[in-house]
């Protein structure tokens, strides 16, 4: 009976197992093998030992791409979580037209990422870009008051401003996260808020001690997903940089470097090495996050 049940269970999960094997496990094992080879896709791989890994350690572009990816995680991820949470809390209030407001904040999410990046490219132009046009009166005011000579930067032509531009362009895609937080906030039992009100808690205290702990599992889920997404980011920096590496390679990320090596420079073996390093990095960061989560994620049973 037990064996039959086990067999039945395996049959049910067989489609997933096949998909997992074909689309995840086989490519992973292949990438591991090819990372030890000189391989260009069209000719048989030639085993070269650990040459790709030693090249990686002396490749300054790899370290630059890694640094850009980590910088993006450190700056963008907390900002996107904070902005999404803030927007969700505001959209959870009883205000007129909240349905329309929710739609407006979600709309950028349905725009394809490439189109989004092209629009931001135009908005971020040094002269004539929308961002500088909006900032110019502010700069004029500051210059008049303080005697400075501030001007709108060439956002995509300077490395530091290019990184900041990427963060702001990526913030437009937080609509999904806002929706998730909104749903989570609406599931917080109202009795908890009523009890807190009776105890004389302010709105901030209600959010701090009730809402945030109650939705902490959801926050953890979005942080984990966001971390993986940030380390794998490709479309927006690739389009913002116009297919290049950006000013002083500031828009070169690990995923775009993998793409270049695999499909433009015909170094699939080295690209597999880079992919494995990225995989280990993401796995390591996610495991750390899971370990850390037990301290901050509130479980209803606790």
């Amino acid at each position: 009976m037990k064996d039959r049940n086990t067999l039945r269970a395996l049959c049910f999960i067989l489609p997933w197992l096949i998909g997992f094997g074909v689309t995840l496990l086989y490519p992973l094992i292949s990438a591991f093998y090819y990372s030890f080879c000189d391989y260009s896709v069209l000719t048989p791989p030639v085993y070269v030992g650990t040459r790709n890994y030693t090249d990686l350690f002396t490749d300054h572009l790899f370290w630059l791409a890694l640094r850009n990816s980590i910088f993006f995680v450190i700056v963008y991820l907390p900002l996107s979580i904070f902005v999404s949470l803030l927007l969700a809390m505001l959209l959870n209030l009883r205000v007129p037209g909240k349905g329309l407001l929710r739609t407006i904040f979600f709309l950028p999410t349905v725009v394809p990422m490439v189109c989004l990046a092209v629009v931001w490219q135009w908005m971020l132009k040094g002269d004539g870009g929308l961002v500088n046009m909006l900032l110019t009166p502010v700069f004029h005011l500051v210059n008049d008051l303080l005697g400075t000579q501030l001007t709108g930067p060439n956002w995509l032509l300077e490395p530091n401003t290019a990184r900041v531009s990427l963060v702001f362009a990526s913030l437009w895609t937080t609509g999904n996260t806002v929706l998730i937080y909104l749903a989570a906030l609406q599931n917080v039992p109202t009795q908890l808020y009523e009890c807190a009100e009776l105890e004389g808690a302010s709105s901030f205290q209600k959010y701090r001690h009730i809402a945030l702990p109650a939705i902490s599992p959801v926050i953890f889920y979005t942080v984990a997903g966001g971390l993986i997404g940030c380390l794998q980011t490709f479309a927006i920096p690739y389009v913002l940089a116009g297919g290049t590496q950006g000013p002083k390679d500031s828009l070169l990320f690990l995923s775009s470097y993998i793409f270049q090596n695999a499909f433009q420079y015909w170094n699939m073996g080295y690209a597999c090495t880079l992919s494995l390093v990225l995989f280990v990095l993401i796995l390591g960061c996610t495991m750390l996050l899971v370990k850390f989560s037990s301290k901050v994620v509130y479980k209803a049973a606790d």
Partner: protein
Amino acid sequence: MSRPPILASCVCSILLAASAQAERVIIDYWEKWTGFERESMEAIVSKFNASQDRIEVRYSSISQIDLKLMLAIAGRKPPDVAGIWSYNIPVYVENNALHPLDALCREYNIKAEDYLPSVWRLCTYHDRIWALPTTPAAVALYWNKKLFREAGLDPEKPPTSIEELEQFNEKITARSSDGRYRVFGHLPEEPGWFRSSWGYWFGGHLWDGHGHITATDPGNRRALEWVESYPRRFGVREVSSFLESSSNVTSSSANPFISGRVAMVLQGPWEWKFLQRFGSGDLEIGVAPFPSLAGSKEPPVTLVESDILVVPAGSPHIKEAFEFIAFVNRQENIEQFCSAQCNFSPLVKVSDTFWKNHPHPYIRVFYDLARSPGAVSPPQIPDWNLYRAQLDQNIKEVWNLRLTPSAALEDVQHRVQQDLDRKVQRWEAIKDTLRQEWNKEDVVP
């Protein structure tokens, strides 16, 4: 006549047409072109399909064709014919991705002597023929005669040396009343397509022809020092904003040369089409060899490349595919096609009608440049993509005054030489096997 006989005859016609269609070999032809370039090739395809009833060529516009072709060959489902670029040949050949064409060329009596040497050598690699050209291109100086006249220069006399180019540049460059630059004589970054090749005009070379990269050649350094002099003289922010304001597009009325904001550019024959389409209609343009550092002491320099047609490895219909490629390369067809694309013919023999009816009034300048001893091409090395990408990236850093010319070139030298060494090592290990394979494949099917 009653309905059933009409219906029966319609059905019979359809069936007959379908059976005739079914006997034709279908050739899949992948090409990068859209717009007017696509239309001009589709005219040749239609002409070929109408000229016989054994083969039907089906044209498909494919973006990022070099990437998709590689994947299609790897997946063993390549098209029968593909239109790529001449600089793709080394990497495709060394990865056994193309079918050699020597035997087929002999069969169709296609010889090296029929073509311009600077174009023919782009189609050969490791002593074999891998492609035939469709549209070759050279680059030359386009200058705006009206801007020359306004600056007090002789509109019929283009600069003949880099020194003279800079003198003209100083005279033409002017600011508007708000202090911004209104017009430039020349900007090396407009259009920025050939930045990796500026060294040629300064006596430099990108490799030694024997597996050694020469990015740090003194000529290349002189070229980058010249490029760097522009932001130093005019201001990084000023020149970058000037170019950015035109959205960095070439085929648009906002383009700085087309809109009369830059007086001199390095461009190819296709620029004439853009000028006709997007220009104001009152442009007075001249075309001449782009000046080099040596001036008139040396033959004029140009960069020659070509769009080419190849038969990918694994193509199921090699003979039929080459029949189409050979048809495109017949004199009357290639002249029709190159004229429609506003390019010169790759053939040595060119009809008077071609010159007479050509839409570009200065097409002979490009043709003569392609025959000049100073005609050069990108290095025929399998990692030209990496070389060019690294040069482009570092030259942009020089333009923005974040890297010195020497540092930029040394970085490229080190990185690309290491990659080339690996590829040469790999080629040495597999060349005998590949040559044996090519000897077996290089027969008329």
